[in-house]
């Protein structure tokens, strides 16, 4: 595999929570990932089309605002239809409306076809090593983040 993997990142549905997305994009880029950031209000189609266009190895979906269940349903099926059915898919954020038992939440999203499901408050430091394993790629992280903001 190429030394710099490409991933598609975005906040799905009618969700406008932009802060976590900015930080994820920044941290992933700092770690050497090529980040295609759709930003907020991203539709399922945008995720799929960008993944195809850029030959991405993973799709990272955020949903913060509670409608994730409705917004994410069918995404895996669409990747299959589009011929990228085996692409790695992560989802994270506040994935359901309200406080719900985490095991149940994880189950709901795994059943939808996500490979990994991340709870509220996940830090980039916890995502990047996992991505490294799942994409068998060498992370170029040196200590913690530094430098200036690439996207702002």
């Amino acid at each position, binding site marked *: 595999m190429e030394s710099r993997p490409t991933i598609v990142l975005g906040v799905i549905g009618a969700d406008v929570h*932009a*802060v976590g997305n900015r930080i994820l994009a920044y941290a992933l880029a700092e770690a050497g990932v090529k980040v295609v950031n759709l*930003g907020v209000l991203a539709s399922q189609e945008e995720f799929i089309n960008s993944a195809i266009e850029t030959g991405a190895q993973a799709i990272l979906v955020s949903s913060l605002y509670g409608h994730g269940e409705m917004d994410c349903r069918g995404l895996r099926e669409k990747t299959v239809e589009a011929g990228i059915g085996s692409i790695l898919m992560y989802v994270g954020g*506040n994935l359901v409306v309200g406080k719900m038992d985490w095991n149940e939440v994880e189950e709901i999203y795994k059943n939808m076809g996500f490979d990994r499901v991340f709870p509220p408050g996940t830090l980039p430091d916890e995502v990047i090593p996992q991505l490294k394993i799942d994409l068998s790629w060498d992370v170029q992280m040196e200590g913690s983040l530094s*430098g200036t903001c690439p996207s702002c």
Partner: protein
Amino acid sequence: MQLTNEKWDIDEFSKIREEVLLQWPTGAEVEIQEAIGYQKNLPSEKRFSEKLAWAEKTGTTLAQPRAGVALISELIELLKYLQDAGGADVLPTTIDSYTRLNRYQEAQNGIEESRAHGRSMLNGFPAVNHGVAACRRIVEELNVPLQVRHGTPDARLLAEITLAGGFTAFEGGGISYNIPYAKDVPLSKSIRDWQYVDRLVGYYEENGITINREPFGPLTGTLVPPCISHAIGIIECLLAVEQGVRSISLGYGQCGNLVQDVAAIRSLKELAEEYLSDFEYSNVTVTTVFHQWMGGFPQEESKAFGVISWGAVAAALARANKVIVKTPHEALGVPSREANAAGIMATKQILNMLSDQKMPETYELFEELEIIKKETRALITKVRELGEGDLAAGAERAFQAGTLDVPFAPSRANAGKIMPVRDNRGAVRLLDFGNLPFDDDIRDFHRERISQRGQHESRDPSFQMVVDDIYAISKGMLVGRPRR
């Protein structure tokens, strides 16, 4: 049609109104004269503006939660609980995210899924879908004033339905409900659509019905310096008043440094009144709203109580007229009704215990007050300049030019060039001014404060410092000190 800050002609308004009411079938339920009659019959304890006037007179800070679920009777039950068990002084109805983006069909699906799942699948109440009669049922079942709280760039139909439905206050504005809540909506459109809302409120006002209007102060909720939200709030206030609004509440989201927060609330009211008289508007009542910390919360409920309580302290010492309350579930999800009531009760315990105590008057407070005023005036002056005297056109151009700029906002209309960071005492300052029209005095002030922190932490202020600040409160701190 050119965007201008001028009171809409009633005919023009009526013409557009016909289209608005056709956007969803429930629009047909709105009959303005009948609605005015309905509003007239509401008892005064259900009128937001009257409760605010009482709060101002008695020096009380009213506590208001956020709350909304998909279905009507569940919403009524929830709000009753917050009123009776929680002791909320005024109530909200928070609107779901599909409605906010006028996706009424998706909201409809959400209603049906909620019925099917037996739990709310929507993060708020889809008032448009439910319609006028449903809103009235809510208003009638409760004893305190109700406000619509949302985040809708085009809230015209929502306003029509909820005001006809007996709500007596309506949050939002053409900037504050666009920049943090949308990606592709042009400011010219959202400002115009909010002129419509304000014109509607003005129409009620002309007919003897005061509806309170509240620009959304916290914006993105994340390290927004007071001058930014103040400038936007005051501009929205002036735009609203031009359309006939007479009861305005201006909001501000807690930054966390007590002196800055108290100075922010005081300067907000003083500046608004200064501009209102400068623009020669009279008979406008301005009140203030303090939002408990709007950024990321800690996950542990007990730590969240700490954050909530500190917000209550600042609201009380600032003598804000109203405080918007967070809950111990904030970091996790839409709160249970118990968690929501808990936030109100913790807040009211503090408000009451502090109601007889005062913020100490110091030079530091005065200095903070003055810098906020100076910055805010610089931002508004530039808006007037760019608009050649017209605030509506000026606001649009200011965002284009980046002389108004909101940190971390999703909107493409926003330059996104400024970068806030905390100083060594936790006050929010600017690390990057972007294109803000600030003179050297202001810039030096910020730089000096930030460099104090840099020295203290032995590191150069950078985006890493900003990231640390974004996480800080959720990790139990105010200032994001470097990890050891």
